[in-house]
């Protein structure tokens, strides 16, 4: 299974709430708050952990068909500065994060042997319609190339839990996908 999440760091810094103590308590456990305060760049670490939580949560929703909002119950452990483990109730997921000056991009997966294709990219502008259109378009072109089909035969629709489902000529496909966008960045992950 697969999940991904991107954070535009400039965009994230424009919201003042992450500086509030209440924000920290609602999103991070005491242990995670310690990881953040001990880090060289607490702001970057906040969004590193956030993207780990969010990408792992996307797999959880896919596996359990259950939505909730409980960031503090999604528990992060960092193994290296880029690799982590995320626990959600009884499930454990692995994560790998790319940290750039402008964005943080995490993919979450069940097993390191899984064949994952992922990509992140800059967007022309940060309007929702452009974020959505460009991210979906890039993903559809990538799938078309992988599966050797025309992009016009493909459609992605979200189900009631917000999980993106791929259709080829109106037939639902068993190819797990994850799409993300935030600010001026977008990304996708495909499980082959």
């Amino acid at each position: 299974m697969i999940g991904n999440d991107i954070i535009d760091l400039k965009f994230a810094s424009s919201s003042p709430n992450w500086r509030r103590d209440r924000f920290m308590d609602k999103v991070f456990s005491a242990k995670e708050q310690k990881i953040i305060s001990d880090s060289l760049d607490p702001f970057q670490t906040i969004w590193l952990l956030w993207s780990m939580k969010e990408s792992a949560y996307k797999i959880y929703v896919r596996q359990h068909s259950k939505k909730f909002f409980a960031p503090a119950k999604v528990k992060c452990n960092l193994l290296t500065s880029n690799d982590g483990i995320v626990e959600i109730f009884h499930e454990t997921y692995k994560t790998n994060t790319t940290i750039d000056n402008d964005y943080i991009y995490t993919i979450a997966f069940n097993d390191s042997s899984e064949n994952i294709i992922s990509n992140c990219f800059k967007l022309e502008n940060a309007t929702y319609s452009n974020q959505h259109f460009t991210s979906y378009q890039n993903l559809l072109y990538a799938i078309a190339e992988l599966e050797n089909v025309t992009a016009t035969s493909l459609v992605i629709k979200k189900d009631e839990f917000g999980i993106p489902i791929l259709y080829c000529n109106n037939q639902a496909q068993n190819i797990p996908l994850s799409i993300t966008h935030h600010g001026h960045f977008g990304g996708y992950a495909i499980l082959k």
Partner: protein
Amino acid sequence: MNMKPEELIAKLKKIIMPYVQDEEAFKKLSSETDFIRDLKINSANLVDIILDVEDEFNIKIENDDMEKMISVEGAMGIINTRLEEE
């Protein structure tokens, strides 16, 4: 302390408005409206909404309550429960 549903929904709309990314869905807002699926609110902004709700209504939303703060109905339920305790 109890608040009329229409008064509560008007206050809630004012709080969520800055984070809404689908204006059409916002115009049609009802109790079933889902913050992420319908209004396309970014999940990081859900925390902002929860903090703003705490400030506006002068209540404390515990982490267990937060789980349900994903729709208008869920948010109204939590706000009412906490207001009744005041």
